[in-house]
């Protein structure tokens, strides 16, 4: 975990002081709401339907017990006892008073946290693989680069008023768990022929109104040049990104309109300038200095198979099921990563109560080297747990209602806040997620269906990433009524694809039945349990699904 030094502490303290002053000027009326809006957005404060929302940055989703406990305390003191984990690995409080924000930022600063750049037209919180440091398939720890990027992008004087928001994600594994191809910049950490680190650089991915898969602009950028190259990309975007229409302002549109070759040429040209000055080149020892913060904990030498765990599994079917679904192989024998599903059947996806946060904090301290991650699928992860400890961890999670064994199943749904909170929404997302989860809640049925990602957005802004859901659901407004459009075949991983719209939308009453029809069609047509929904869809195309959905309608 990165730890602040004196410099970092002073920076955050100064920023809190600055925002305190801005809030005071807003409350005194010196700043109009219009003048204040971009300032509060830079600091994660949104005005929602019913109250202010504060979005707190969790850099690349990394937390520890101290931070989690503080978030719990803030939830209890200033909100309604809950927090909402987001698809950008952040945390939102949905019921905040503006007057309280400076105090909350002060509380966060004490545990080395802040809300800087969690919204606004700037470089947002950098995200990374939630299994970083634990994944067997990573070539390096992507958090090292995410942290360097976080620092460089913090209150960047040139890039704080971009045409639109800008998101960066980093993965270091071939299997992309960070959805880098739907980010403005996606970085794939790789090793070159001599074992040296470099990056494949993808630019111009994004969801929203015009979903696009990113294009690769560099196959192997040397490690030392990471910041120089990103600065060049951002400068080209800042200068030439469209500012006449906010729906056409993301870098993906610039790339689309000018062509990837032209933009790549401009980036390279600007990059030569930046590199020539050399100030942003990363010296080896400085990368190592950051990497040291992410050094692996002292793992024990353990057998790959835990007798304790196997015995416990034999006695407890619930544990066996949990391990089969929510536990992932670790790079070190005898260890595993545990996914804590925040998708209990019938609960709002991504929500956690203060008590649950505290329970996870206690488990992390006792059994998981004090590390917790937030995944972009709105779950929590304990990256390093001994197999021997899984039975106790499972019991503790059960006590906190956090042991739902559905990671990656059809009920592990991503949903944006939707009409329950968001002023831009066309339709509710959370209740639809809850109803789908209830329909498919039977464990045997979920098991039979296997891997299936449903993602729900309450409007075209696509915060619920519906375009990359195997089944995507988009809330639309039809003559004042909530309707839902369904897309199929999307995926956010290394085989990234944008889902296709199957046909006309469904009313709120119909949408859960429609999902069931799709699932039943898949079960009927698949070549066996080994063929996942996505694989079957890619083989069959949308025709059989469309037929099943719309046959009766004629």
């Amino acid at each position, binding site marked *: 975990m990165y730890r602040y030094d004196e*410099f970092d502490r*002073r*920076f955050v303290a*100064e*920023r809190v*002081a*600055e925002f305190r*002053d*801005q809030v005071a*000027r807003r409350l005194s009326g*010196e700043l109009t709401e219009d*003048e204040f809006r*971009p*300032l509060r957005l830079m600091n994660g404060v949104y005005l929602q339907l019913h109250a202010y929302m504060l979005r707190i940055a969790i850099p690349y989703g990394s937390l520890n017990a101290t931070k989690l406990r503080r978030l719990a305390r803030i939830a209890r003191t200033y909100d309604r006892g809950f927090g909402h984990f987001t698809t950008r690995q952040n945390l939102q409080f949905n019921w905040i008073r503006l007057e309280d924000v400076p105090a909350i930022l002060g509380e966060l600063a004490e545990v080395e946290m802040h809300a800087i750049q969690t919204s606004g*037209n700037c470089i947002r919180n950098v995200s990374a693989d939630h299994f970083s440091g634990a994944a067997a398939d990573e070539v390096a720890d992507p958090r090292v680069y995410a942290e360097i990027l976080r*620092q*460089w*992008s*913090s*209150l*960047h*004087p*040139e*890039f*704080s*008023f*971009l045409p639109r928001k800008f998101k960066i994600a980093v993965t270091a594994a071939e299997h992309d768990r960070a959805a880098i191809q739907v980010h403005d910049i996606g970085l794939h950490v790789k090793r070159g022929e001599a074992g040296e680190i470099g990056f494949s650089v993808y630019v111009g991915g994004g969801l929203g109104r015009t979903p696009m898969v990113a294009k690769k602009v560099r196959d192997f950028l040397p490690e030392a040049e990471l*910041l120089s190259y990103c600065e060049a990309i951002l*400068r080209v975007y*800042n*200068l030439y990104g469209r*500012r006449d229409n906010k729906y056409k302002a993301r870098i993906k549109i610039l790339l689309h309109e000018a062509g990837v070759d032209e933009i790549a040429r401009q980036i390279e040209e600007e990059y030569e*300038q930046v590199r020539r*000055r050399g*100030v*942003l080149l990363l*010296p080896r020892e*400085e990368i190592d*200095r950051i990497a040291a913060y992410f050094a692996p904990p002292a793992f024990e030498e353990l057998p790959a198979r835990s007798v304790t765990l196997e015995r416990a599994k034999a006695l407890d079917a619930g544990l066996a099921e949990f391990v089969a679904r929510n536990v992932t192989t670790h790079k070190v024998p005898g260890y595993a990563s545990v996914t804590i599903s925040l998708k209990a059947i019938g609960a709002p996806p991504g929500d956690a109560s203060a008590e649950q946060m505290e329970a996870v904090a206690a488990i992390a301290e006792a059994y998981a080297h004090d590390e917790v991650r937030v995944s972009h699928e709105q779950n929590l992860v304990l990256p390093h747990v001994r197999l021997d400890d899984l039975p106790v961890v499972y019991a503790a999670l059960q006590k906190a209602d956090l042991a739902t064994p559905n990671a990656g199943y059809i009920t592990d749904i991503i949903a944006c806040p939707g009409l329950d909170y968001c002023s831009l929404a066309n339709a509710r997302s959370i209740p639809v997620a809850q109803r789908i989860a209830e329909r498919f809640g039977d464990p045997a049925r979920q098991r039979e269906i296997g891997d299936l990602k449903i993602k729900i957005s309450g409007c075209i802004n696509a915060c619920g990433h519906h375009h990359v859901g195997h089944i995507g659901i988009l809330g639309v407004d039809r003559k004042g009524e909530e309707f839902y459009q369904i897309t199929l075949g999307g995926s956010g991983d290394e085989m990234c694809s944008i889902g296709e719209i199957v046909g006309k939308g469904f009313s709120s009453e119909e949408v859960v039945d429609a999902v069931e029809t799709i699932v039943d069609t898949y079960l009927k047509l698949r070549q066996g349990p080994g063929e996942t929904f996505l694989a079957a869809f890619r083989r069959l195309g949308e025709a059989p699904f469309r037929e099943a959905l719309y046959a009766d309608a004629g």
Partner: protein
Amino acid sequence: MALYKNGSFVEDTWRFLAAEDDVPSDGAIVLGKARFLAEREALAGRNAPLGIIIEPGEGLAGIEADIHRFALVVLPFPKYTDGRAYSLARMLREEHGYRGELRASGNVLRDQVRFMWRCGIDALEVTHAGTIAALQAGAVSPVTHHYQPAGLEAVEHRLAGARPWLRRAAAHP
């Protein structure tokens, strides 16, 4: 309107030429980029300070070779949320070695002043009363610890022994 430079409000000695005005033979004048390009040859013989206004959408194309001729570059911020001029400022300073006055005009507000300084802007045309008061009181952004090398060494400096991308604000211009 007030011009803030080198730590205080000063008299503006530059004349902003209106479209219908002819170029006078002496005195410091400021022209728009389009007019400069149209009259570039004629202006070459003129032996008095020359300034240019570069709108955010105009960029530096076509004047790269002339930049050393200007003693003033004015970068308008039509809206403070339009951040293009920050890039233009840094390119002028860092890529073209421009050392003359670099002035922000338009929607110049106290909450952005620090960003402007950091990008190499060293003069501000201010109309916003709250911003004028804040500059007079020395109460612009309290953030003096920075995570990226940007502006000029006079504005911020490296810290010995610290991460090389960190900077600390020196004095403001």
